[in-house]
């Protein structure tokens, strides 16, 4: 080898090492099972956590109290706390609701990591059946950041079912072809110009991931390329009758498996030495998106002008369908005041959470059934001294006192 050739090879190697960040190393990976650790004399902190998190009362059908189904704390790669209630166990898969959105986002990352899609692609590059439609001007990155611009009314139990886009998609006129339903809605805003929290955007995202991965990895690509690799093999990812994955709400996994998904993000998208998400993906997923910065909804106290499509004010900033503990705007405090600034969370209806705390090397996974809040005779969020006013900030801050 000449000195010139040697120099060239050296320069190439230096160049590669400067670009490719190594995956984190761990003594072991919980693909098969989580190792157990201890909480080191935290009896007082544990009691405070349990007194808050597991306080149901009344009949089950009344849904009162703080109704935790499962709670798990991972620190340093070990389970330091795990408890189930209300008939749940380590073996039961629990509904994710919108935690599914963070999973769908990651599946887009998996496809990008394989070079099967680019965030700058039109969505119709993958969803070819919509080619030629105006929606094709919208890019994958727009859906990834709730920025499709598609008009959407995200309503649940508290409002009118008939004016809820999500209920109509999941259970009503849209349920047979949910992606078709979303993409038939009016695109009221330019792509990337308006943040609209939308289960429809997340559903489209999962469909994009499936369409990108399926030619190379088949119909079970989500499992082959993500779930099996991190030990989430029993995950259920439901589909509509057309075969569209329902990536906005209908994923089911055990609590331990949800914690594994958080652990993947805690480890920069790597698992046991293999990079499953592109370098920089976790950082981008947990940084306030350009869409959110562009317009986060109608946040004024004044009445909106007549005829405007009012998009609700978003108070918790979002990256790639993860929620971040950063101030949404100047002079506004961060959403979870007692949690670290670097915390980020996958959040689902009725109190589903996967919270990641990188600076503490901690993941907290929680499943629950918070549907009815407090009864009428509650005072200051309590009935006869028992909590019924659920707060994610409080639950997680109590969990972190156990973990520290």
């Amino acid at each position, binding site marked *: 080898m000449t000195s010139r050739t040697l120099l060239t090879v050296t320069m190439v190697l230096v160049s590669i090492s400067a670009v490719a960040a190594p995956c984190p190393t761990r003594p072991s990976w919980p693909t098969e099972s989580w190792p157990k650790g201890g909480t080191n004399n935290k009896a007082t902190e544990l009691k405070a956590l349990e007194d808050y998190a597991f306080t149901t009362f009344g009949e*089950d*059908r009344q*849904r009162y109290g703080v109704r935790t189904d499962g709670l798990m704390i991972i620190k340093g790669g070990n389970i330091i706390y795990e408890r189930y209630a*209300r*008939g*749940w166990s380590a*073996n*039961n*898969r*629990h*509904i994710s609701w919108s935690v599914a959105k963070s999973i769908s986002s990651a599946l887009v990352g998996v496809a990008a990591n394989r070079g099967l899609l680019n965030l700058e692609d039109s969505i119709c590059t993958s969803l070819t059946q919509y080619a030629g439609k105006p929606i094709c001007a919208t890019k994958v990155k727009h859906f990834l950041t709730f920025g499709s611009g598609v*008009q959407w*009314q995200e309503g*649940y*139990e*508290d409002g*009118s*079912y*008939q*004016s*809820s*886009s999500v*209920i*109509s998609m*999941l*259970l*009503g*006129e849209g*349920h047979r072809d949910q992606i078709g339903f979303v993409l038939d809605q009016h695109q*009221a805003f330019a792509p990337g110009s308006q943040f609209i929290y939308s289960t429809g955007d997340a559903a489209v995202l999962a469909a994009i991931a499936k369409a990108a991965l399926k030619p190379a990895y088949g119909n*079970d690509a989500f*499992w082959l390329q993500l779930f099996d690799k991190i030990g989430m093999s*029993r*995950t*259920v*990812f*439901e*589909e*509509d*009758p057309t075969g569209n994955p329902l990536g906005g709400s*209908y994923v*089911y996994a055990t609590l331990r498996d949800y914690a594994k998904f958080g652990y993947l993000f805690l480890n920069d998208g790597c698992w046991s030495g293999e990079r499953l998400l592109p370098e920089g993906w976790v950082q981008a997923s947990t940084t306030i998106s350009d869409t959110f910065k562009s317009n986060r909804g109608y946040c004024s106290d004044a009445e909106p002008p*007549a*005829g*405007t*499509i*009012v998009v609700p004010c978003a108070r918790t900033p979002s990256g790639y369908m993860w929620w971040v503990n950063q101030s949404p705007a100047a002079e506004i405090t961060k959403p979870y005041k007692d949690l670290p600034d670097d915390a980020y969370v996958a959040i689902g209806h009725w109190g589903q959470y996967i919270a990641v705390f990188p600076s503490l090397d901690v993941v907290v996974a929680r499943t629950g*059934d918070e*549907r*009815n*809040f407090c009864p009428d005779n509650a005072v200051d969020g309590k009935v006869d001294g028992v909590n019924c006013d659920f707060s994610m900030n409080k639950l997680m801050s109590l969990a972190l006192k156990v973990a520290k």
Partner: protein
Amino acid sequence: MSTRNRSGLGLAVVCMVASTCAVDNPNGIRTFAANDVQLAVANAAKMACTCKFVMEMDDDFCKAWVKASPDVARYSYDPVAKTVEASAFVSWAAHARMVDEKRGCVLE
């Protein structure tokens, strides 16, 4: 779905005769086609299927978990075929079935 802010059967009856097509009002709020009873029946079929066959919880738990407002839907399982039939007021019915261990339940 919770009972919070819902007025139950009275509302359900009103909704049964509500609109049957999606419309936009002057404030840009859309109203979709399916009425509350249709949605409650579809919800019961889907949620009962998921509760029993995907989450594998027992019948008593699922009865409380599926309960929604308007609380008009009744459902029954076929544990062998892994299907759920739900109905209300004779006119409304929905069917869900367990597809497999990866794809869970589908509302048909």
